[in-house]
């Protein structure tokens, strides 16, 4: 996958003799709040991904609105849709082309498990992108609402920094309408 060489450098810094803990934290904070997702729509979920970035839901509140069509400029791959056997190779190539550090969100049931297209004797759909990609966050739904994708991105931020920066909305405290 091409990740070994570069991730070696990443991990070698904190374990060195001189520790840069504060600096690392600062760097993680910067990364978590300026994720650049790749414009990578596969199917229905891509429309909800567009909705998340557009007028009402406005992903830029969380710093992740800079959708980049080129994998070399992106650090977050949102697999939004069904991956089938023909698309498998391009997805792998796209992931390899992304620069480190990089993260993957599996958006929607198709990307998680094959979703509604998984049946006995199916011949074309890859049942879950985690069979070939290291998935960080799973966002279930068919398709997930834009709020769910935003929550997925917040979860990823938590994974990167170790702390939750935004309050968690509980169903009973959520504002209706």
């Amino acid at each position, binding site marked *: 996958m091409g990740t070994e060489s570069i991730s070696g450098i990443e991990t070698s810094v904190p374990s060195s003799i001189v520790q840069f803990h504060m600096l690392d934290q600062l760097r993680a904070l910067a990364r978590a709040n300026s994720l650049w997702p790749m414009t990578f729509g596969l*199917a229905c979920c891509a429309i909800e991904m567009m909705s998340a970035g557009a*007028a009402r839901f406005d992903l830029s509140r969380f710093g992740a609105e800079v959708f980049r*069509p080129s994998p070399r400029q992106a650090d977050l791959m949102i697999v939004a*849709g069904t991956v089938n056997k023909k698309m498998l190779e391009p997805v792998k190539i*796209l992931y390899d082309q992304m620069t480190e550090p990089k993260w993957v969100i599996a958006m929607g049931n198709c990307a998680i498990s094959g979703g*509604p297209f998984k049946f006995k004797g199916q011949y074309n759909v890859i049942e879950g992108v985690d069979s070939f990609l290291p998935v960080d966050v799973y966002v279930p739904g068919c398709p997930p609402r834009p709020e769910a994708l935003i929550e997925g991105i917040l979860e990823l931020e938590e994974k990167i920094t170790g702390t939750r920066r935004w309050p968690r909305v509980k169903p009973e405290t959520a504002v209706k309408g």
Partner: protein
Amino acid sequence: MTLLAQSQLQETFELNIGPQHPATHGVLRVKVIMDGEYIVKAEPVLGYIHRMHEKMGENRTWNQFWPNLGRLDYLSAIAYNHGYAGLLERAMGIEVPERAEYIRVITVELNRLQSHLLWFGAFILDLGGFTPLMYAFDEREQILDLLESVTGSRLTYCYFRFGGVYNDVDDDFITGTRAFIKRLRPQIPMYHDLVTKNVILMERLVDIGHISADMCRKYGATGPVLRGSGVNFDIRKNEPYSVYPELDFDVPVYHECDSMARYMVRMDEMEQSMRIIEQALDKMPDGPVKAEKAPKILKPPKGDYHFAVEAARGTFSMRTVSDATNTSYRMRLRSPTYSNLSLFEEASRGMLLSDALAFMGSLDLVIPEMDR
């Protein structure tokens, strides 16, 4: 001319667009042979999102196939619901209550509005204007709210049933829809003022992407692509179904055959959809929304059935061969964008690459529907 100059003149190169490219709106791949900036041959490659819909039609029972209809063309999913409902109702001879038919028409037209709004935003985004996307999505979210209140989902609807619809609409939906129409109606002239008259847009669209009516017939193109080429063909008028004959609306037709004509057809269709919705809301009677005698377990009699509807992108028709069991023997889905894309190869010859991408946007492609 020297041999060297000749060979330089004939020098072409191959360019791959996709399967991951923002202008193809999905995972379409186009193999293009280029001569400088001009296209010699553009060959679309499909299959990157083939999801076995037809096969699933054959190993799912009739009722289990409903969710697939919401995931074919996820932008006008309710029209696809309508196609499937109509198919089985024709096969089984199920009578649909009138209120259900009106609800179907209202939801289909709302769905068509949101589809065209999204196309409007995404198309202008392709051409380099970002702001219209935000305007279009603002309106679109209002429609999604309305549809969500009756169908329960935002995008992949599974709302219709054989012999009616799943849920009756409430007063909130009716008043909300009326208020929304009142809100959207002045927006469309504003879009025309802001976008249509823009010189840059005119330069990119007028006289670009010429498709003659003959070419449309040859490839079976339907929908706004066909109507932008001067052919007045709309399933709602030509093979009327549901309660469309009782509603008064026009079919916008433009004779310019270029990208601008297709753009104008869709913009005018939004106006007509609003007219249809208003009339349907006025005429909607009270009563049940589901046929009482619709059987729970379906076994359509042996035969070959066909039903066509006008989806947002053109004619969607379903054909099934039934062998009187609870699954289909063969399910065939005829999707409009597959035919609309197939003329791309012929129409894009000699075009500038940047124009070809604008032209592709004007075809309004949804890739999972094409690959099925």
